[in-house]
């Protein structure tokens, strides 16, 4: 046992966490996040190893292939910090063990990070912000940006600390119920909100007129019989809105969309979404689907369907 144990201070760990923000900066097709991972580990390597040989070995060790969801890299960094600390203090931790922990954790954790962050949290915060933004409200982008970064930073720091404290035991903890619970909750909530988003935000309006019915006299506003000027407008508004709910035109026009809406609002949007899901499962590129939809929109508009 070494007489003076080298420990990573909170400051060192904060430095690692901050650097891991840039994890994907040198993302490459050969070893993916390896450069960023090594970059993140540098403050720890500096503190733990003093000789040039040890440092070079540590740097090379952390330039190995690595790829996961960028936020869940944090708990893996935490565990790796704990392992490196043990190693620097003389415990027998070989390269294979460190690489094994990294590779062993990155797959399962990416499986959690992708659905929770990319497919639940971001669509939801994004849709919340965007729905405000569509009305020109600056709060939309601000809420999105602030909330996202608060959640992200809190997640990254606390899970890194958790990984550091738990060390290699973390893998047991994570196979437990908590992770499963969070993933289930996220996907339930995500699906619920997605259902809502499709109803609200996928806009398809079929314009063809299904029927034009002549209304009975007295069911519509007779514009030529109104008094002149402002008085006439006032009376028209009263007839339209308040007392009598009269129609603006002598005919009642029903478009295809009105019929669909009385059946199921948003049905067309739902069907379009299912079609897209099916095409995506058939490995059709999303880009091609997007371009096709634009073409359908233009053609549909030209022939008067949309």
């Amino acid at each position: 046992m070494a007489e003076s144990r080298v420990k990573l201070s909170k400051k060192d760990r904060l430095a690692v966490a901050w650097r891991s923000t840039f994890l994907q900066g040198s993302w490459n097709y050969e070893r993916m996040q390896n450069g960023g991972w090594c970059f993140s580990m540098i403050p720890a390597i500096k503190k733990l190893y003093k000789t040039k040989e040890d440092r070079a070995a540590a740097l090379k060790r952390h330039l190995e292939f690595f790829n996961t969801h960028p936020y869940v890299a944090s708990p893996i960094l935490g565990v790796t910090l704990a392992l490196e600390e043990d190693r620097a203090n003389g415990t027998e931790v070989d390269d294979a063990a460190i690489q094994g922990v990294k590779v062993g954790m990155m797959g399962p954790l990416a499986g959690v990070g992708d659905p929770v962050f990319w497919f639940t949290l971001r669509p939801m915060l994004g849709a919340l912000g965007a729905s405000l933004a569509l009305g020109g409200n600056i709060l939309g982008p601000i809420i999105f940006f602030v909330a996202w970064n608060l959640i992200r930073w809190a997640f990254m720091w606390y899970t890194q600390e958790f990984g550091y404290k738990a060390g290699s035991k973390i893998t047991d903890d994570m196979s437990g119920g908590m992770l499963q619970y969070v993933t289930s909750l996220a996907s339930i909530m995500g699906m619920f909100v997605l259902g809502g988003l499709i109803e609200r935000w996928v806009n398809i309006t079929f314009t063809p007129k299904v029927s034009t019915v002549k209304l009975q006299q007295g069911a519509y506003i007779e514009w030529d019989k109104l008094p002149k000027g402002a008085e006439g407008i006032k009376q028209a508004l009263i007839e339209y809105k308040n007392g009598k709910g009269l129609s603006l035109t002598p005919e009642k026009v029903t478009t295809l969309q009105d019929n669909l809406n009385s059946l199921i609002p948003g049905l067309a949007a739902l069907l379009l979404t299912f079609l897209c899901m099916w095409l995506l499962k058939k490995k059709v590129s999303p880009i091609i689907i997007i371009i096709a939809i634009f073409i359908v929109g233009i053609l549909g508009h030209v022939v008067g369907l949309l």
Partner: protein
Amino acid sequence: MSAISMILVVLVAFLAGMGGILDEFQFHQPLVACTLIGLVTGNLEAGIILGGSLQMIALGWANIGAAVAPDAALAAVASAIILVQGGQGVKGVGPAIAIAIPLAVAGLFLTMLARTIAVPIVHFMDAAAEEGNFRKIEMWQIVGIAMQGLRIAIPAAALLVIPSSAVRGFLESMPAWLNEGMTIGGGMVVAVGYAMVINMMATREVWPFFAIGFVIAAVSDLTLIALGALGVSFGLIYLELKKNAGNGGNNGGSSNTGDPLGDILNDYE
């Protein structure tokens, strides 16, 4: 556009380019990037609305593993610049969205290019590691990030150089039917993003929640926050009930319960 605005636009583009690869601060998300460009050019409202519209389309775009999603950063930055140059304000949002889509595809190639250029960069890091040289590794990491920033900043600067009268002329030469058709397409294209997300998350267990969400959203008095609160509550209630339902909790969880609708879609040839 003033020189200061131009510099700020390029700066925003640089941040968006970095964001596109890092995926941390979210500067590359249209909601943020378009708003910032609107802000520095004095078109705040149009920028926010464009950002919101594009965000709706880009909700499901995410880099999974080594796969690259359509490039939200280039789409957001370039379409916002075109919107500003076109000078039509809020009215120009529709055409700007349609322009953004091909740009997102073009951005894909730039992203792949940048990720390939990053390969030699990590080889330089290897060499630096051999010498135990921290400085050099840090330097190359920063070079890598800056390269990703330039990926968006250079096209943005190029777009700024094109005189705004040319952009305006181009936009005004587009016939109305094309414009309106593209706006209609923009309203539908959102479905692709949702479909991508659903394909990732759907299991037999969670489909009913999708149905409930779809039906409840027709009640237009409910805000998105209300929908979110309902979603959390349903989820908590369901998971609590499931836990109490017994089974020793052994086979609980949503482990590969399958995706019936997905299977139907798969089988439907």
